[in-house]
């Protein structure tokens, strides 16, 4: 994460580090999905890759050294790539509709509930993954299933 530098503290230059990864680290291709499709797939990634994600987070809580959690990180990446491939071949058009809607609307989820509903149905039918918001209080409908929400798009 980049930080905000206070002004007048020296000449800033952008440094691009060209050293490749060391050869003893197994190579895993990074996830190439950008922010809007990733946000759209976020809850499905959370439930499909739950075990690997939790392993990674627990590992990170032990030490923030990047070298400490490389193995768990590779597992997370592989699981995410697996789910993205499955989403592309099974629910490709619904996913595209949802993330394109998000991209037009500042990537805020409450603007795009109709495409989201279709995507959730497709994901549940084809892949058996349901969108669940963890921490929803008992007895309250989750916001993505509420039929007439108060906070919604004003226009369009």
């Amino acid at each position, binding site marked *: 994460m980049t930080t905000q530098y206070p002004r007048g503290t020296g000449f*800033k*230059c952008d440094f691009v580090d060209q050293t490749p990864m060391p050869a003893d680290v197994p190579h895993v*291709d*990074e996830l190439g999905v950008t922010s809007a499709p990733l946000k759209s797939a976020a809850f499905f990634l959370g439930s499909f890759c739950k075990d690997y994600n939790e392993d990674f987070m627990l590992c990170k809580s032990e030490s923030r050294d990047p070298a400490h959690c490389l193995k768990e990180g590779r597992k997370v990446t592989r699981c995410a790539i697996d789910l993205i491939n499955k989403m592309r071949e099974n629910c490709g058009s619904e996913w595209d509709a949802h993330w394109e809607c998000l*991209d037009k609307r*500042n990537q805020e989820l409450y603007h795009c509930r109709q495409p989201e509903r279709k995507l959730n149905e497709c994901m549940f039918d084809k892949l058996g993954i349901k969108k669940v918001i963890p921490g929803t209080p008992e007895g309250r409908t989750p916001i993505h299933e509420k039929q007439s929400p108060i906070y919604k798009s004003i226009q369009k």
Partner: protein
Amino acid sequence: MPVPWEALIPFGLLTAMFGAAGTLMNVSQRAQNDGKAPRYKLDSWEESMMERDRRLTGSKRGQSTNPLAPKEFSLNSVWQTENL
């Protein structure tokens, strides 16, 4: 009976001026954002994600659903540094 159409000229001018300024603003903002409306209320997380999008696609508003990142992605991360 003559209609005082000259009295409506200021309203026409206001509409035209506001319309022209607004349209120019909209067109200029969309041109800077790959034809999309500009993003607002961006926090550090969103800025970091947009920087990642720039590294993946070449533009801060570019999107893609490729499961695998291009080869350049592993070597093009930018560190903000200072000369001491």
